Every structure is written in structure tokens, then in C-alpha cells.
């Protein structure tokens, strides 16, 4: 299991070499081949650490076993770097159980297009029950503001994301956690909640305060209850979608003021650990930025007798090296974040940096310094990836300069566009301000497997969709969805909701079109910038995509033959959620300026004048002969 390697400073790397661990949940570990023999003659300096290492080794071995079980149960969960069950239960049964635990990690992946993808995950686990105990008042690592929200609003699961930019699937591949541009909030409430809509509204307002965002704009006109697309990610079998609410705000602009409260939820703040790197002047000088908070109940142990709450804070950012580096292909932690690392968060149980080196087995694509001997392999999004691991809890990682600045130099140039197995795009067709057509294109680039996708479309009421014009075609033929859930809109009350289960044939483009009419709003309903247009949120495509690993017929390498004849279930497909781009639609807009006033005035004058003119045109005038007066009558 342990891989040995001698770096340029042998004495310092001995410890490192001995404490090498490979965290995996597949069975493979790549020994570093030729390098490791060199470390064999270096003497162990610290016997204690060796003992520790072996113990940890045992833990880790168990760890991946446990993980496989875990993975199978929650296949729907997006990829998670760490397992959900705590190893303490398995091994350290004698030691007192810590009530809460904190883990942090950073994954850096050089992207196909030459950009750099950095993904932070901070995970706080707390074994408590917000629902049963009347009042939870003693908080350790778990942020009190969120804990109070959970108990006050009886939240079962809460997922909130703020994203600035659009994830370019064609250039970057799939993200670890996808999110739509703008803000997205979806919440499962406990089944004890009676007034779900009221609670939801109140919750949105509270979260708006916590995250300094315009979540208070979430109301019934942009909230939907998806029936199939958003299933609970944590434990619990409540799937009654009456307790689910989903809303997006595609217009939300994400900036520093959303990052600061998010950082304050971390146990170490930005004082220590990986969070030191989160400097807004660099994070917002990027191609893509997304921050999210996911709260869900998870199993405390693998028997799942008790539940604990998991808070997972994620932050994904893509840096464009072309912009900043003037074409020079090299990055380092300092270059990306203008900080280096000096320590792990003291409260964290694990603190690691993973660098994706899959495309670089022999070091021909890029070189990495300081070199690390730790390697890890994982199946991420259906693809087997290899990572170099830097463990920040080990002092040795920081070297003599007491700071870690991972540096990578590229050798290759920008690549062609990718063909991800599933990707989608959406646009508005047509011209003029009366009607239009929403086209959603879903690409299945798998060479021979078809797979079903769930499409969720939530369209505001002011685009009046004509559902009878809904067509689903793939390869020029009609593709009948096996499940359609459509909830028509009500003007000024609720949006359209369209959910469909569509089978995507292999190697095809499936096009979903639906026509709409643009409504004329009341003049007070226009935004202050009506000519900018009105946003329609991203549609959501959720799917179990056949994995690349299963596609790879040569996957038998390094694996025992007996284990590979039938495709392994949890590897054969993986869950992906793809968001399309939001739409900007122009509605018929009156000219809110001086001419508009002139038109209003003129219309008034015309309306007044019209009466008399009509009178004149319809009346016949006759000259009346003066009749003799009453006095002359007899």
C-alpha cells in the first residue's frame, strides 16, 4: 500500500515516505515504480510515527471498504471525496466519540482547455438531532446561524448555491458539483411542517440575510415543486414532493458580499487551513465562480442507527491562465490565490490537497513541484482519475520554508473541444415581441448506450407556454417521453412547471421545443431596466449516465480477472446534473420616457375629443322653425 519515494531532500522526506497512504475506494493503487526503491535504505527516524502509520493504514483500508457500501446507497449524491461514515466508529471504539468533526480539502484539476479548476470542500459533521431535542444551544464546529435555521424551520435538507458564470461543459468536462448561474435554493422540509409555503417564504428571507443575497425575491411566482428531479440526498425515505420547494434566481449577481458570510461559517474562518486561500480579489478574477452550502442528515455509522448532520460547504472556481499568465502555462497556489499554505486548520481532522494527474502518468504533460509521493485513485464522474495528495496535517508537507506552494508547469497547448457524454443547451428561437419558441437540445454522445434523462423546466408566467406545441424529437423522429408532469402557470401566482422523462438514443441530439407567447405586463410590474429583458432560469437535466469506466473494455488492467467479467454496478453509471444556460427574453415594453408620457396625454385628449366628434358625425342638424309661444295658444 505504501509507496516510497526519495525526493531531492531525502532526510526530510523519510517521514513522508513512510506515512504515505492511498485513500481509494476502488482497489487500485499505483506504486510509483522505479522511484520507490530509492527510499528503502533511508532509516526510519521516528518509530512512533511508524506505528501511527500502520494503524492509520488499517483505518484507511477499512475506510474504502465502508465507502463502497456507502456509495452504493447514495449513488445519486454527486461525487464525494471523503466517505460519509466515520472511521472512528470502526477502529477507535474505545476512545470517546467526538461529537463533531471537520474536514477540508482542495481538488485542483488542470482542464482540457488549459484552464485550472479548483474545488474546495469543507465538511462539518455533527451528531445531534435538531428535530427531537427541543433546543440545541451548545454549538461547537457547526455554525449556529445555520443550526438555528434548521431547527426553527424544520428543514430536512437544504441546498443553496450562488454561481457567477456558466460552466462550459464542452471545454471543461463535468464539474464535481454543478450549479446554475445565479442563485439556486432547494429545500426538503420535515413532514411535520404544516404550512410549507409560509415556512419556505420565511426561510428564504432568513437565508437572504445570512448570505447577503436577494433570496427574498423568491416567492410563489418562481417556486416550483418538482416531482422527480430533486430527490433527497441524505437519509430518510420521505419522497412526498409536497415538502420540497425549488427556486432559482438567474439574475442574482454573486460577489464578495456573498463570499464573506459563507467564509464565516467555517470553523477556522479564514485564519488557518485551506480557507486562507479564499481571497475575493483573486476568486472573482476568474472564468467561473460558484459557492454552495449543502445540509443533509447522514448516517453516523454504517449500520445507520443514528443520524448526524452534515454541512458541506463547497466552492468551485475556474481560473483562466490565458488572461493572467500572458500565454505562459504555469500555475501555482500563489499565482491562483495570491497566498501560500502554512498550516492546516487545527480543528480539522483531515486537510488535504488533491492534484489531478491522470493525464500525466509519466510527467510528459506538466511537472509538479514540490513532488509528492502520495497518490490516490478514485472513480470520479464515471472516469478513473489519479490524484497526487498533499496532506496538510503532516508538517513534512510544508518543507523547510514552512509554506506550501504547489507549482505546475504545462508543456502542451490548448486542446480541441470535448465531447462530454451528456450536455445540453437552450435558446429562444424566433423574432418579434409576440411569440417565440424555447428550444432545449440534449446531446447524448455515448457511442452505443441510450439512457433516460429527467428534464425540469420552470418558466415564469409571463411567457405563456403553449403546451400543445410541445415536441420532442431525436434523430428526426418523434420521441415520446415516458413521463410528463405539467403544471400550468397562473398569472402573477405561479410559474409553469414541466418535467419529462426522456430516453436519449445513443449518439444523438434530442430537441425539445415549446412555443410561447409574451405577455404584456402591467406597467408597475416592469423592472427598472425593462429593455434588458427578463430572465428564465436554467432547465435542469438529471440523469444516470453510463460511465466511461464501463465503456473502457481495457479496464481489466491491474484488476483480478474474477472481478471484472460483469460490469460493476456502482461503476456502470453515475449521476449527473446538467444545467442549461438561462434565457434572456425581451417582453413587449412600452417606452417609459418622455414620448410615453406624450402618448398618454395625447390619448387622453383624443378620448375627450372623440365624444364630441362622434356626436357631430352621428347627429343630424335641422334648423327648427321658431314655433309660436305658449301665450298665443288658445
Amino acid at each position, binding site marked *: 500500500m505504501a509507496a516510497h519515494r526519495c525526493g531531492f531532500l531525502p532526510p526530510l522526506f523519510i517521514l513522508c515516505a513512510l506515512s504515505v497512504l492511498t485513500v481509494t475506494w476502488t482497489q487500485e493503487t499505483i506504486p510509483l515504480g522505479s522511484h520507490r526503491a530509492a527510499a528503502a535504505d533511508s532509516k526510519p527516524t521516528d518509530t512512533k510515527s511508524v506505528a501511527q502509520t500502520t494503524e492509520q493504514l488499517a483505518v484507511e483500508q477499512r475506510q474504502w471498504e465502508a465507502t463502497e457500501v456507502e456509495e452504493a446507497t447514495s449513488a445519486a449524491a454527486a461525487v464525494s471525496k471523503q466517505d460519509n461514515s466515520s472511521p472512528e466508529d470502526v477502529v477507535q471504539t474505545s476512545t470517546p466519540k467526538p461529537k463533531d468533526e471537520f474536514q477540508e480539502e482542495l481538488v485542483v484539476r488542470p482542464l482540457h482547455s488549459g484552464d485550472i479548476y479548483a474545488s474546495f470542500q469543507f465538511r462539518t459533521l455533527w451528531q445531534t438531532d435538531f428535530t427531537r431535542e427541543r433546543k440545541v444551544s451548545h454549538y461547537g464546529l457547526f455554525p449556529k446561524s445555520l443550526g438555528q435555521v434548521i431547527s426553527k424551520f424544520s428543514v430536512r435538507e437544504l441546498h443553496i448555491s450562488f454561481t457567477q458564470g456558466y460552466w462550459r461543459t464542452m471545454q471543461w468536462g463535468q464539474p464535481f458539483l454543478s450549479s446554475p448561474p445565479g442563485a439556486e435554493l432547494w429545500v426538503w422540509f420535515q413532514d411535520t411542517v404544516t404550512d410549507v409555503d409560509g415556512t419556505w417564504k420565511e426561510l428564504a428571507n432568513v437565508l437572504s440575510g445570512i448570505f447577503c443575497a436577494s433570496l427574498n425575491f423568491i416567492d410563489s411566482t418562481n417556486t416550483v415543486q418538482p416531482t422527480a428531479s430533486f430527490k433527497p440526498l441524505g437519509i430518510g425515505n420521505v419522497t412526498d414532493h409536497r415538502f420540497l420547494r425549488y427556486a432559482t434566481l438567474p439574475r442574482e449577481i454573486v460577489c464578495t458580499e456573498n463570499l464573506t458570510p459563507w467564509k464565516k461559517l467555517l470553523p477556522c474562518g479564514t485564519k488557518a487551513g485551506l480557507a486562507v486561500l479564499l481571497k475575493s480579489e483573486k476568486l472573482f478574477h476568474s*472564468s467561473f465562480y460558484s459557492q454552495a452550502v449543502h445540509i443533509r442528515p447522514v448516517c453516523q455509522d454504517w449500520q445507520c442507527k443514528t443520524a448526524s448532520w452534515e454541512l458541506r460547504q463547497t466552492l468551485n472556481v475556474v481560473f483562466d491562465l*490565458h488572461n493572467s499568465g500572458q500565454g505562459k502555462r504555469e500555475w501555482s497556489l500563489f499565482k491562483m490565490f495570491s497566498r501560500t499554505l502554512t498550516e492546516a486548520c487545527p480543528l480539522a481532522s483531515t486537510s488535504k490537497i488533491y492534484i489531478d494527474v491522470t493525464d500525466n502518468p509519466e510527467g510528459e504533460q506538466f511537472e509538479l513541484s514540490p513532488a509528492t509521493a502520495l497518490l490516490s485513485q478514485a472513480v470520479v464522474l464515471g472516469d478513473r482519475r489519479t490524484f497526487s495528495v498533499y496532506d496538510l496535517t503532516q508538517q513534512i508537507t510544508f518543507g523547510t520554508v514552512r509554506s506550501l506552494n504547489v507549482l505546475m508547469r504545462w508543456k502542451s497547448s490548448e486542446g480541441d473541444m470535448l465531447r462530454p457524454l451528456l450536455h445540453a443547451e437552450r435558446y429562444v428561437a424566433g423574432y418579434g415581441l409576440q411569440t417565440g419558441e424555447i*428550444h432545449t437540445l440534449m446531446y447524448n454522445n455515448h457511442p452505443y448506450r441510450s439512457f433516460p434523462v429527467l428534464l425540469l423546466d420552470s418558466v415564469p408566467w409571463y411567457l405563456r407556454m403553449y403546451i400543445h406545441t410541445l415536441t420532442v424529437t431525436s434523430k428526426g423522429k418523434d420521441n415520446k417521453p415516458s413521463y410528463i408532469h405539467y403544471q400550468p402557470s397562473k398569472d402573477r401566482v405561479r410559474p409553469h412547471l414541466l418535467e419529462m422523462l426522456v430516453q436519449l438514443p445513443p449518439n444523438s441530439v434530442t430537441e425539445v421545443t415549446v412555443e410561447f407567447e409574451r405577455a404584456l405586463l402591467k406597467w408597475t410590474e416592469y423592472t427598472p431596466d425593462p429593455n434588458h429583458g427578463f430572465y428564465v432560469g436554467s432547465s435542469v437535466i438529471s440523469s444516470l449516465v453510463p460511465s466511461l469506466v464501463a465503456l473502457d473494455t481495457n479496464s481489466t488492467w491491474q484488476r483480478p480477472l474474477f472481478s471484472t467479467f460483469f460490469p460493476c454496478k456502482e461503476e456502470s453509471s453515475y449521476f449527473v446534473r446538467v444545467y442549461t444556460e438561462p434565457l*434572456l427574453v425581451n417582453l413587449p415594453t412600452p417606452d417609459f420616457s418622455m414620448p410615453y408620457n406624450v402618448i398618454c396625454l395625447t390619448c387622453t385628449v383624443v378620448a375627450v375629443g372623440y365624444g364630441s*366628434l362622434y356626436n*357631430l358625425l352621428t347627429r343630424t342638424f335641422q334648423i327648427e322653425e321658431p314655433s309660436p309661444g305658449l301665450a298665443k295658444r288658445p
Partner: protein
Amino acid sequence: MGLLSDPNRRRALINLLTRLNAPICVVCYMAGFACFMGLSFEPFTLRTYMSENAMGSTMVEERFPAGERALATGREFAAHKKKIGGMPVDWLVKTMQARGLEVFTQSFSRTLPFPDENKERYMVKGTNVYGILRAPRAPRTEALVLSASCSPGDENNQAVGLLLGLAQYFRNQIYFAKDLIFLVNEHDLIGMQAWLEGYHHTNTTGMDWTPLHGRGGSIQAALSLELNSHVVTSLDLVLEGLNGQLPNLDLANLFYAFCQKLSVLCTIEGKLQRNDWDSVSGYSQAVQTMMLMVMKQASGRPWGDHGLFLRYHIEAATIKGINSFRQDKTDATTIGRLLEGMYRKLNNLLERLHQSYFFYLMPSLSNFVSIGYYMPAFGLLAVILLLRALDLWVQLVTPPPRNEERVNDIAQSCPGVLSILIPLVISHLTGVALYMLPVRFQEMAVEHFPVSETEAVVLTAIAVYTAGLALPHNTHRLLSGEGTEQGWRVLKLVAVLYLAVLLGCTALINFSLGFILALTLVPVAAFVTPHVPKVLSAFALVFLSPACTLLFSVFFYQELQEMPVSFQDGWILYLSVISQGILDHYLYGSLVYPLIALLVYPCWLLFWNILFWK
């Protein structure tokens, strides 16, 4: 209102209007024309100003350095183009990818209804190449377009070079908030039409194209670039688009502001601005500029690649580099900086351009005439029609003085719907024939006469037009018997009101076309009766018919461009203008040809009918 509800005063007013009808009409006509000519007199016009806040106060710096390199890229492009003998698609894709763009292609094909002899094309096949520069942290909802067409021969290579140079430069900038689309379209307008239809997934003209795979959301503005030589002395701004649509005036202001800032000579309609508005030559320059704009707008055709964007509510203009062999030259770096500045300001837009005018005429780049100023000129012409209609109405309803013939008259005064309807139907059927026959019967014409397809179409159109003169006034007499005095009055009343509505609607959409038609058709409508001298009036009527208007416009346009032509050349030009007009309709959906054929010409035929009423 009191004036009208008093029967005596009303009668007095009506008497005045009917008695002085002819003089009032003449005065109105004169006043309308004078008013129009006065529009280009500088003290009567407004100076342009930037209305859009987002583009006005914000300062941008232009730093584009690589003009020479862009020209070198243009030369490389020209070499590849020559080698392949068409658009070097692979080279463009590779070059754009090397500059960090997402590159996509679209192929299209179109068979023209008949061969286009001006551009020598019939079966058109081509490929558009476009690259999208994704703005950082933008959700793909808004985009700006820069296009350059890949024309055959040596044209526009520098524009493609500059486009690629700008793409490379913009890739390294961080301030873009909207996606930038760099488009190289083949076969100029046809390629542009294919791309725009593909982008918006519409099909209005029956073209074949492959769907687009990359988009940048709703396009906010577009510029189209035409540079034909390394040496540029001035830049010309082309605004007129399809059906006489114009982009928002702020786009012109933006161009003018940057030309001033970078001290580049800029023109509109190829005319430099003059400062001596009070001199005769200064005024005549302004008149020429404005008349050129009026003529171009009235033609309803797109005068640059930008013209097709306007249908999709995308503000667009074409910037043309002119080499007029002056002393002061503008290098490619300056043009690049000008475009950079314009794009940075367009990038600052928070809303679509909407603050400034959409309906305007420009006597120079720094002055404009808004709709509020030019509409009265048209209104004065249109009021003549209403006055004539009033006069006719009064004549129709006033009982004749002698009582004994009254019974007879009442019978006469109701000429019957049929006698009105039949001329209307016949003239419109002639219009339908004029619209349908030329393209439908080209094969037959080519079989029987020694002409090419294009000539066949144009000559058929002229033949149908001329045949229409003979047809209606003969048939109507056969059908409804002897025409009565009341009969032609009712017909003329209908025709005059019809013309008034027609011209009014046209002028609202395309002022120039409406005004030119009003200038020629209103006198016809005003004076024609069965009692005027036949030969002379018939001659005048033909002289003022839509076809002759077009012929004069061709000569007038050449005169304005300071390229006068002989009658022979003018006639050939006239024929090609007709074929171009028909092609514009079939290729891009221009509405001028159907408007003339289906509405204006039948309306004019009604007056022809009245002249020969018996």
C-alpha cells in the same frame, strides 16, 4: 367643436374648403416639399448627442496595438483563400482556435429564384465560420457580434485580418461581460441570412442551413466590417437596413464620438461633413447627404451585412473603410482601436440600445432630423388627399339644385357596389399577376424568347405592368355598363382614401419610401377626373406612375453619387435594379416589391381607370 355643431358655420367652413380646395392643395404640396427641403438646413436640425448613459459618461481606453500583425493575418488569409479558391474554412477554424475561441461552422445552400447577374451567382453553397469568445463569469445570456464577409476576389481580406487580430487581443482582456461572436460569413448577405436564421432558428426565406451548435444568448448589438485596402483614408458608416429599418441613433453617435476622439475622418453616405452650413455649397452638401439616405432607405434593401440584423431587433451598422487617395491616412491600428472602444462601450450596456431615436434622417454625422421634424412634411402631402376626399364627399351628398331631376339623380347617386368593386378587384388581380408571373413564368419566357432568366423576369414584370394599363378600363365598361358621373366620384373617393391609408402606413414604417411615393402619387390622385384632357393627362399619369418614379430615382441616385450615367446605361441599371428588388424580396424578405406590386400599383391603376371613365 362649437364651430362644427352650428349648421350655419359648418356650412360656411365646408363651402370655404370646397371652394378653395384646389389652391389649398397646391399650397399644401408646395409647403410639404419646402418643409422637406428645409430639413437639411442646419439651423432647423438637432445636433446629435449620446442618450445612453451607459455609453456616455464611462471612459474607456483603447490600447489595441497590433494593426500591422492584423494586416499580415489578412494577407495570410488572402493567400489561403486564393489557394482554395473560396473560403478557407479549415484555416479559419484553426486560426480562431489558436486565438482561444470556441469555433463552430455552419454550412448553407440556397438556389436563387433566378440567376443574380450582378454578383454572378445562382446555386449558392457556403460555410460560415464563427468563434465565440466567452466572457468570464457571464451566464451566456448576452452577446455582441463582429462580422466580416469573405467575398470572392481580393475584397475584404483586411477586414478578416483585423477581425482575427481583435479576437486575439480581446481574448487577453478581462473586462468583457458579454460574449463576443466573431463571424466570417461567406457569400455576404446570403451567408449572413443563413447564420441569423440559424441563430434564431427561423426560416423565412426557404434557405437550407445546418443548425448552429454554439450560441451566446440574445445578441445586443453588431458591427460589420468592410475593409478593402491596406490604406484607409476615411471610414464610412452605413445604417440603412432591410425594409428601411435603421439602428438606434446611439450607435451612429458612438461611431462619431470615437472618430472624433481618435481624429479619424468619418463620413456618412460617403459625404464628409462641412462646417459652412450657411453657404450654398454647404447646404447642398447636406441636402445631398440626406437625399442619398432617403433614396437608400426607400429602396428597402440592406446596404451592408448589418442590414439583416435589424429584423431581429439587434442594433447593427456597417463600417466601411474608404480609400479616397487623400493625404492623411488611417492605419489599421487606429481602426482597431476605434472598434475596441466601440465594443468596450457596447459591453457596458445594461439594456439594449433604446434611449435614442429609431426614426431619423441624417444630413451629416453630427446632425439629425427626428421623426417629429420630418413627419409634418409628409403630413402636408397626406392632407391633400383628405381634402380631396372631403370635397368629393360634399359633392356626392349635396343634393343638386333642380328638383325635377331629383328622382333620376337618386337612382344615379347609388352607383351600386358592383361598379366600385369590379375595378378594385381587377386592378388588384393585375397586381397579383405582377407579383406572381415574373418568377413563375421565367422558364416559359426563356423557352420562347432569346433572353436569359434574369432578363426574362425583368421583362415579364415590365410587360405585365404595361398590360395592366390596357386591361382594367376596358373591362369595367363591359361589365357595369355606362359609367355615371356619380360612379367615378365614388370610385375616386374610395381610391383617394385607399391611397391615404396606404401612404400613411408606409411612411410610418419607411418614411423615405412613403414620402417619395406621396410626392408622385398625390398630384395624380388630386387632379385626375374623366373630364381633363385625355392624352396630356394620360402622359402625366404614366410619368408619375411607380415604375417611372423608380426610373427617375435611379438617375437621381446616380446624380447624387456624382456618377451621372447616360440614358442607355441608366436603362440597364434600371433593369438590374428591378431584378435586384425582386431578388431582395425572395432572398431576404424585403417588402418593397410586394408593396409596390400588390398595393401601390393597383391603387395607381384605379386612378388610371378614373381617367378613362365613360
